[in-house]
């Protein structure tokens, strides 16, 4: 198992990103530490998804840098992926597998999960109240439940940095409070969250830093 860092700091320095000839975002400088949550808000199409993708390194920057503990994440020696759990706005659930199989499979990629037990997956599904869909094919359940199933990874993984893209879409109010509880627990457990959302949840989660992105 990889060493899990306890002191984390993501510092973004004048990051700019282009898609084709169009600028997506420009000159973002920001820094987030342990016990903090960065909430990215802004209108549709302002580049929230691209920004989150660039923090986990699958979107390359045009200029500027993103560093985790002063190591550039785009350098070869970077081990940022050992600490980052990325859940995109696509659920990354395979339609031909059941919810349980999907989670088991996704955990196989996560080295912070040493040995996944059936019981733990069941517990995480119970937390979101979707345990009864455990053996349903993903194509058979609703969008909101798919979202919950993909967020169940948060309970299974031991990674410190959560990168979440629109985790609250499609989710009912009951699920909402459960997710916010989860965020609070993670923040208090010296975790770090970066997420994009259309709902202002800065009052519900401790230590939230809000960041507005403008349409460019």
């Amino acid at each position, binding site marked *: 198992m*990889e060493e899990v860092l306890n002191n984390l700091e993501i510092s973004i320095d004048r990051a700019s990103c282009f*898609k084709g000839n169009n600028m997506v975002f420009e000159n973002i400088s920001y820094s987030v530490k342990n016990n903090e949550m960065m909430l990215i808000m802004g209108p549709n199409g302002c580049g929230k998804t691209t920004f989150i*993708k660039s923090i*986990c*390194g*699958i*979107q*390359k920057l045009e200029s500027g840098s993103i560093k985790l503990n002063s190591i550039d994440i785009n350098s070869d020696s970077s*081990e940022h*992926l*050992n600490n*980052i759990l*990325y859940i*995109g*706005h*696509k*659920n*990354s*659930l*395979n*339609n*031909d*597998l059941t919810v349980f*199989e999907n989670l*088991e*499979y*996704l955990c*196989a*990629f*996560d*080295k912070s999960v040493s040995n996944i037990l059936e019981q733990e997956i069941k517990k995480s599904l119970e937390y979101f109240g979707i345990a009864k869909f455990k053996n349903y*094919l993903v194509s058979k359940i609703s969008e909101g439940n798919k979202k919950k199933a993909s967020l169940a990874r948060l309970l299974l993984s031991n990674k410190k940095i959560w990168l979440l893209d629109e985790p609250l879409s499609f989710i009912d109010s009951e699920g909402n409070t459960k997710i916010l509880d989860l965020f609070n627990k993670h923040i208090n457990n010296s975790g770090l969250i970066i997420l994009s959302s259309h709902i202002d949840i800065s009052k519900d989660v401790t230590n939230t830093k809000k960041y507005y992105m403008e349409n460019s």
Partner: protein
Amino acid sequence: MLRKIIYKEFKSYFRNLNSVFLPLIFFFLIISIFPLLIGPDKNLLNKIIPGIVWITVIFTTLLSSSNFFKDEYNNGFLETYLTSETSIELILFLKIILCWIFTCLPIIFFIPIVSIFFDIPLKNSFVILFTLIIGSPILVSIGIFGSSLTLGIPKNNVLVPVITLPFYIPILIFSASAIESVSSGLPYEMQLYILMALLCFVLPIMPYLLKYTLTLSINN
């Protein structure tokens, strides 16, 4: 972890048995259309059957590999692969092999039946079998490479064949000539060795190439 990946791939193939059987049916359909087109002349058919078998294999592999990553691109799985700390090359390698197992292996199993239909001598049908076993993994991996290039394009139905077919040519030339050599009583081992060399060249570098293409494709 390897066990889980193989298990998962097998499961999703088995839940979509259509995608395994339909290429096979397609293969038989095309094969049986040729005699209808050119007449049942046995000598002529015997002469062109290697070409027919290979053309049909090309169609079938293109059919199943041209949208290979589409699902995983759409449901975000590729992002998960690329943001996981585990080595994705191994997964890609396994995926190529499994794709071959489920699309080409069934066809290879049915080559003896095709040989009976077209009255191919036993030795020749063995050579056809060998060329297919060695050549079709190359076709599959090139097809998958083509599909990874076209991920960012919404409609890529004909594009993948247009891109990948020129790359198929060496493999086709050597396998067709091996089959032809054996049917005219000439030595055919050299062609098989060349095919084997091509396989040993393509298969190991393909996962790395695919990883690079996928990172480029997802970066959009």
